[in-house]
């Protein structure tokens, strides 16, 4: 668990303790006079005050002992020998005093949580003395365990199988669309850190995060979970992934305030911006990062190569050859700019995809994903640069998140136009919110450009590299959560799972970017209500519209449908019984109330709206 989350957990636990320790006093209602702080000793004269200072050149500290408090424990008598207890290091002082915490208690000092240096562990010293010496004095070890259990039910347009069907009498394209997924994911996070980590960044960090996933999906038509109709309507799959495997080396400190340069090599998480609009993944690569000006500036310079994904878990497949898709990233964050409380970021990402020479690639279920089963299916390379400005923070009481991207590049062969295309696309997203006591109200807007003419030499539909947008309800909303297949229009989905862009990719995880797409307009409102300390309710309503549906018309060979997608209505609750992140239960339900465009594409009238219901239990250690 990241330090920040642990801090939150600890604070929450403290709050709980506080709440139970003084219930009677709270009920009586304390008057202001009673609530006043205890009187402090009289102030010193101003010229003798100890001021708060920044590090650097300074005058020596002066210390004035407080006046003796007779109620305190008396000091040791000078005549008696000092009773000292030898302790291995300063982190174990509490243990020496008799405080011992079991290993399964992550809230208190725990050697598995990086609270105690492992070199001084008695067990290690006794059994592996050499190792213990090597790891002294300041190596720390941290284990995190997260169990993520997902149960999802949904209704999506599902075609009956092509060459075969599950039931007789299936004489149309659209079958019954109820689907379900159950997935269990166990994330094991192992970290080894060197450094006196109290105030400065660690010197070294090694992290290994294996992830174990089992998933089972059920549908009502054949040919959906596997390409082979004989495989039936259910699929059970498992996967072991490596989501992180990196070494982080603290290169140097560049200021007395511990501004630093570090390099991190290996499989590591990276997010392009605050909300994951363009790229959020765990690729392999080298990232140089650090801070300047007392952490006011943060920067990243990185090269990443994307890893192949396991089809059904969406996790890294390190057994497969990495994608021939490289990212060059440069970004900088500026805190408190333009106003305190607001962080601004500028980013440039170059995505160089050279998968055109790799030949056809089929996913784990037997479906063609690269190139997409679309257009002429000729292989393609592309190079696209993203330039973005992002911001996150607040202006007074108003919270604002905003992103603007332009994508400029070249696709050497578009499968519909049959010719190279210049990529010229744009994206904007904004979330404005304000807190009113226990409720936060949000206003969302998103605009992704669409393509007007699939056959010309310009691709003007915006697509990301690998989006994972935390926006407009994110995975609790229907549109973002579910991948709606463009039935009859090629082996592509309108938008990917956990994606907002209708980019007509074969797969968000495994497919190539596609800049000939209908684009999107999203306008929505939402509310987050902290009903109880343990319970948060979230609601979102978004109106969705394509920018230009010509490409949908071409792919389905029908009159371009109406631009209206419809209303995405969702509600969710988050229940944290212990007011910590250690046990979190999420439940959500979403439906897409179809507009005319969706009705022209799918069997909405007959089957009722598409929906998505999910329950998710997160257990963290």
């Amino acid at each position: 668990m990241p330090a920040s989350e642990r801090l939150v957990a600890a604070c929450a636990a403290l709050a709980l303790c506080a709440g139970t320790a003084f219930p009677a006093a709270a009920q009586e209602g304390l008057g202001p006079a009673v609530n006043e702080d205890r009187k402090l000793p009289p102030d010193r004269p101003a010229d003798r005050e100890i001021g708060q200072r920044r590090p650097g050149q300074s005058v020596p500290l002066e210390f004035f002992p407080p006046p003796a408090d007779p109620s305190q424990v008396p000091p040791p008598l000078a005549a008696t020998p000092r009773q000292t207890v030898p302790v291995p290091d300063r982190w174990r002082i509490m243990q020496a005093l008799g405080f011992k915490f079991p290993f399964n208690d992550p809230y208190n000092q725990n050697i598995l949580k990086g609270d105690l240096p492992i070199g001084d562990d008695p067990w290690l010293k006794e059994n592996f003395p050499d190792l213990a010496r090597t790891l002294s004095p300041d190596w720390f070890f941290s284990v995190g365990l997260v169990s993520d259990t997902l149960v999802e039910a949904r209704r999506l347009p599902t075609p009956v199988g092509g060459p075969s069907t599950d039931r007789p009498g299936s004489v149309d394209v659209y079958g019954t669309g109820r689907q379900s997924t159950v997935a269990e994911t166990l994330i094991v996070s192992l970290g080894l850190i060197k450094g006196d980590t109290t105030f400065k960044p660690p010197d070294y960090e090694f992290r290994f995060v294996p992830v174990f996933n089992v998933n089972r999906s059920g549908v009502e038509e054949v040919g959906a979970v596997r390409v082979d109709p004989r495989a039936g309507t259910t699929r059970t799959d498992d996967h072991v992934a490596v989501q992180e495997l990196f070494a982080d080396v603290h290169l140097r400190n560049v200021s007395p305030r511990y501004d630093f340069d570090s390099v991190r090599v290996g499989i590591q998480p990276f997010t392009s911006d605050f909300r994951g609009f363009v790229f959020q993944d765990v690729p392999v690569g080298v990232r140089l990062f650090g801070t300047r000006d007392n952490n006011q500036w943060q920067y990243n310079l990185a090269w990443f190569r994307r890893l192949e994904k396991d089809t059904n878990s969406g996790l890294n497949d390190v057994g497969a050859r990495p994608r021939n898709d490289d990212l060059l990233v440069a970004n900088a964050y500026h805190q408190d700019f333009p106003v305190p409380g607001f962080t601004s970021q500028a980013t440039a990402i170059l995505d160089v995809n050279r998968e055109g020479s790799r030949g056809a690639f089929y996913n784990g279920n037997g479906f063609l994903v690269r190139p997409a089963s679309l257009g002429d299916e000729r292989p393609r390379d592309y190079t696209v640069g993203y330039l973005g400005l992002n911001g996150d923070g607040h202006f007074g009481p108003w919270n604002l998140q905003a992103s603007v991207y332009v994508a400029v590049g070249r696709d050497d062969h578009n499968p519909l136009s049959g010719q190279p295309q210049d990529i010229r696309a744009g994206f904007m997203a904004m979330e404005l919110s304000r807190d009113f006591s226990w409720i936060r109200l949000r206003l969302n807007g998103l605009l992704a450009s669409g393509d007007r003419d699939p056959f010309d030499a310009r691709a003007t539909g915006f697509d990301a590299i690998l989006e994972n947008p935390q926006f407009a309800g994110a995975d609790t909303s229907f549109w973002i959560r579910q991948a709606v297949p463009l039935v009859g229009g090629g082996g592509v989905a309108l938008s990917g799972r956990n994606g907002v862009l209708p980019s007509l990719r074969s797969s968000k995880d495994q497919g190539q970017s596609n800049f000939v797409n209908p684009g999107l307009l999203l306008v929505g409102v939402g509310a987050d209500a902290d009903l109880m300390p343990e319970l948060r309710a979230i609601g979102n309503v978004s109106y969705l519209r394509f920018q230009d549906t010509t490409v949908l018309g071409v792919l389905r060979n029908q009159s371009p449908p109406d631009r209206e997608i419809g209303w995405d209505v969702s509600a969710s609750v988050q229940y944290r019984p212990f007011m910590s992140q250690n046990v979190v239960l999420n439940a959500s339900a979403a439906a897409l109330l179809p507009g005319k465009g969706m009705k022209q594409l799918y069997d909405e009238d007959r089957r009722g709206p598409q929906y998505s219901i999910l329950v998710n239990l997160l257990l963290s250690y």
Partner: protein
Amino acid sequence: MRTEWRPAAALAVALALALAGCGGSSGSAGSRACVPNCNAPANFLTEEDVRRVIAQAVNEAAAREAKATVAVVDRVGNVLAVFRMTGARERFDILSGRGVTGGLDGLRDTLPSSSAAIAKAITGAYLSSSGNAFSSRTASQIVQEHFLPGESQAPSGPLYGVQFSQLSCSDVVRNATHGTVGPKRSPLGLSADPGGLPLYKNGAVVGGIGVMADGVYGLDLVVTDRDEDLDELVAVAGTSGFQAPADIRGDRITADGKTFRYVDSESLASDPSRAPAFGALPGSLEAVPGYVDATVRAGVAFGTPASGYRPATGTFASLGAFTVVDAANAERYPPRAGSGPGAFTAAEVQKILEEGIRIANRSRGQIRRPLGSPAEVSVSVVDANGDLLGLVRTADAPVFGTDVAVQKARGALLFSRPDAFALITGLPPATYLVPAGATSSLAAWATSFRTFVGPGGDLDGRTAWSMRAIGNLHRPTYPDGIEGTPPGPLSWGFDSWSPFNVGFQLDLVYNQLVKGALGDTSTGCAGRAAVGAPAGTPDAGLPLARNGIQIFPGGVPVYRAGVLIGAVGISGDGVDQDDMVAFLGLANAARAMGTGFGNAPAAMRADQLSPQGTRLRWAQCPQSPFNDSTEQNACAGL
């Protein structure tokens, strides 16, 4: 963004309408404005046009130091000229490139190059319309084991089997003795060998050009590359001035989101505008017995009685339908009653045809531009004997569908007949030219079918068979497209399969197909005696399937009180549209008439069966089926 664009687009369309009329030889999205199509009496190939096409093609072949045989046909298959360059190879090889010997595959140096050129020209003309321009390369793409070819696990091409249509023995297509009326037969059926292209004037298909220069009649197995195909480049040069409008070429039309191939390369070695005069060309016109004399003649305008197609009369006229006529402009297949117990009345046939056209007129065309065009199909009804009781079509349906619609009806009829097993097992085997003397027993196919399908597969009339279901069982993999599986019981296994050696469908007509290619013009394709059979050998064949059968969707049998009385066959647009026009059109007609005929009872249909654990399909009506409503799943519950 959109609001800025819309008025501009509207203005552009308005200008295009005002200025362009029927478009031209090229165009972009939205510029084609012929409603409902571009066919007009003025649009036909003149003799001078034919000479120009040939001169341009020969000029390109000469620039490439190649010797070509070039054929030009009109839209209904009249061969307008065959030109053979001096030194051009007299005969050609049929080679799929899959290393297969059998059926027609591996047949070397036997058939005249003119046959190949004519078949390719006819393919370009027959597959195309005012709404779509397809080439023989397109045909190659849609008759293979996957669509697209090479896409592992994808089902077979949507027109799998269409190459064996327009056969010289067909009763539906005409031969040279019928004057100019079409549709005319093709010596080799439809061609998958690149080098056959349609010719256009004013947005209307007026014919096709076919070229045989490389000596190989094959297909394109690898569609993801770009070939520099000699035949195709020569043909491309020939089309100069008669090119298909860019906006309706196959590469702008999608089926299941995938575009069709039109041509791979247009990198000419010559300048067609500087082609020499026809008289100066190195070579000569060739006479092809039964097809053309050694002359150049003009084509006919599609839709005029001389073409064999003209607007229908009566109720059909109000639906905008066309009919097929003979040389005397008399309708060849006006609705008439069938024979046999419970047979169709003429009124019933009329109603089925009407309802079929009604569905088509509402339907979303799958292979046509501009987007939103209605489906264009041919609709046929046969009785239980396979006699054609009626055939009408929409105005601009591609010509190939005239024959194919009937093949589909007869295919569904043949397998659904109570005596199907006996009929098939009684036929003589196909005697292949290669390997010499090899035979393929039709009885063996029927037996294999019984064994594979198991209960319900006895071909005894207890199961109703639709074209789609038969197609499921006539693919080199079963389930269709899934690699590593055994073939369906009517198909050769993948290793010995090719589009020139498909199995039952070809074997059924093989003997007469070969005889026809060698000059026999007798009618009746199925079950005929082999080449060189001793005189006096019974040769009645199987009249039920006298133009052969088809093995892709669009045909359903018709029952009255559980008794098979005939079949309906549709061809012309997407195969799902064909299915819908057949299945839903028949259901609508049955409901309207209330005389007891209709689709096969659900319990009899082949989709009740799951041979080898994989369920068969009955029909599939398309997604977003209608242009005029958002209705989906139009066939549910029928």
